[in-house]
């Protein structure tokens, strides 16, 4: 829930620039493609609609509609509904992916992941050992790519390593921590919003 509050507080102020394309969500199709390319391999077809349980709901995340003349991007402006839908869909994905840190990770999941992501995420399973801290940057780059300025990476890492809750995080299981790490990347405005 804390993640949701953080996410909403980051995203919704961007509505101030309502007319600015910078403030629009990328839409479900583009995010599907980005996650597909950075997290999964070609044996698996990622669709956020599957996490929301409905094709129609995914359209509320932003999508193109073509009528007779030109395509228009609809539902891309952040609002409470699509913001919560992003949160639900991507938190669920983060939760699913964190299963690779379970004592017996599901082999189907492991086989569906691309090697760069798998390597970075596996290293996080050593949490809270130092090896996982040094793997944070790799995980960030595997998922976020270079969409965000470096300061965002530092802030994200700082949240887990030096923030108010850092001590509590040290006692949190790796599975849960991987989910938190991933959710905060997926829900970062640089990941979800258009440039």
């Amino acid at each position, binding site marked *: 829930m804390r993640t949701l509050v953080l996410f909403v507080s980051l995203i919704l102020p961007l509505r101030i620039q309502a007319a600015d394309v910078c403030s629009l969500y990328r839409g479900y199709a*583009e995010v599907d493609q980005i996650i597909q390319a950075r997290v999964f391999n070609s044996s698996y077809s990622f669709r956020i609609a599957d996490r929301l349980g409905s094709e129609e709901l995914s359209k509320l995340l932003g999508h193109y509609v*073509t009528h*007779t003349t030109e395509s228009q991007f609809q539902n891309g402006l952040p609002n409470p509904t699509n913001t919560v839908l992003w949160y639900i869909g991507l938190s669920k994905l983060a939760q699913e992916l964190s299963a690779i840190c379970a004592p017996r990770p599901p082999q189907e999941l492991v086989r569906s992941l691309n090697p760069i992501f798998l390597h970075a995420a596996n290293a996080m399973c050593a949490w809270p050992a130092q090896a996982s801290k040094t793997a944070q940057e790799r995980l960030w780059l595997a998922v976020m*790519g*270079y969409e965000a300025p470096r300061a965002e990476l530092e802030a994200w890492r700082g949240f887990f390593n030096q923030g108010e809750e850092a001590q509590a995080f040290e006692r949190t299981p790796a599975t849960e921590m991987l989910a938190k790490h991933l959710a905060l990347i997926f829900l970062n405005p640089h990941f979800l919003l258009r440039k």
Partner: protein
Amino acid sequence: MAHLQIIGVLALALGLTACTRGPKAPFTLGETERASIEALQADPWAKERWLHKTASLLRYRQGLDAADDVEALKSQPPEAVVAALMRDARFGDATLDFALYFLGKRPNSLRDARGWYREQVLLIPQAVSAARETLRDGDFLQLLNFDQPYYGLPLRPIQGGEPAREKLFKDAVAHFDRLAAEVEAGMAAGDKNLTCKTAGEYMVHPAHILVDAGMTLVLYDHLMNSPEWFGEHHLYCVSSGTGPAPDLVRYRAIRPKFLKLIDALKTQLPANYAPTELAKLRALDSATMSHNGFYNQLTNRLWAKIDNSTTNYNRRRAAFFLKRFFCDDLTPVNVALPSAHVTGRHGSEPSCMACHYKLDPMAGFFKDVSHLGVFYGTASHHHVKFSDGPTQLHNRYVTEWRAPESAPRPWLVGYIRSMELENENTYGEALPDLFRIIQTAPEVKACLTRRVYEYALGEGRSVDASYLSYLERAFSEEAKVNSARAFKMLLTRIVLSGAFAHPNPDPNECYDYAPGVNPQARPPCQVAFIFEKNCASCHGPTAAKGGLRLTEWVATEGGARGFTHKKAGQQLPARESFTRILNRLTTSDPDARMPMGQSMPDPERVILVKWLEEQLKKGAP
């Protein structure tokens, strides 16, 4: 004599120097890109970030993957990395996505879960052809060619599999022949009741069977609407229930085409055709369908579905073409006032004429085309049917575009650049002329350049006009040699631009200028960009209404810089020019308020007004 020899040698040497320093060779990068390359080489984090961003753009969001040797790529010069990424088949999808963006069509994704290109993508064959051509360094400018083949989807799988499909094909032909025989017998017996009922069955039913055999509904629509197929009879008999008796000669002419179509469909069987690669896309045999470009139901979907209602005639189609191909985003005010249309006032009011002088002649290109995109022919007895129901005799309809007798041309149809200077305009008569104009007009190449920039960096980002002109000039020159390579060079220049390389560029800042342009001698980027976007069609490089060119920033009397603004051939002092512009931006008089007849977003107007007020406060002479 010795002096003359020395002078001759010097002249020769200077001449050679001039030759070597003359026009820059095509397909080479300039100092703008070199500076960016140096900056990238100096900062490993920036280089790696740029590498991923570039890969994501050129591979249609796929980015770098485990198969890429990132360290090797990082060690290569940026331009070599770009060239390598462009050799990847995924660059075809990026080009296709751009081509669709240029034409105003954005599918949510290009492919379905099977990896096949979606039908909505294949139905814009200009885009598909441009992408295919780019991959093989062919003619990227097929993007502007409206006479294209139809890249179909495989036939839909059907119950009973291929044996069932084969039987349906045979049934379709048998049905065709049986009904034709009935018509023939009936006509010989003088049975007048045959007409539309039999014609309807004769035409429609065999085509229905082909749909059952897996043919797409798009092809079915084509068969029903194309005049070369069943279109004319379909129009009369199925739509209105009346019309001429079936024409056996015509039916017999269709039969070989029908058989050819079935043969063509068989090449699209799902077992041997999966449209997963651009290079392997297969076009249906063009002999099976009409391909005159401008009335082809399969390939004119770009525009044919835009209404030609009784109130807009063909202006919506014209507006679409102006926007997509000329980047002329007409945003007229007050067009939603029907009473103004009915009384005829709208088109003649000065503010409205700001758009209509070019919108109406452009609409004339479509005067011989139905609301479904079918070519009427120019015969006067045809009725033009509008999408909102009413009809009008074709010869009355076209009088809207007939030029006065004194005019040097029969029609007032064309692409109009200037109301005053006719020789700046390009006139024509019919749709093929418009397509020719699109392929040759410099404005279209400029628009294409702008859209590539927007596609790579995002819409709404400020960009210096000199930089866009620089890109456009290079693209136009290089396209004369090879348009696919020119497109690749254009993209290369853009990914090597300062704006693209910047980690978090401010949308209101300019990061790139044409070689030799001093940024200090330019108006602020955002201001210049807003003027360019809203005002340049009347006050820009091709037109200087009121003597004002808002795209030129020059030294004026007293040393201050201002826009080129001439009265009676004399440049106005900057202060007077700024004051005049400010007044026209802030007046509430609709006949004087700029931009004339078009809406400008309020935040943009505020930025211009504030900037002009600042210039006046600073005491520009």
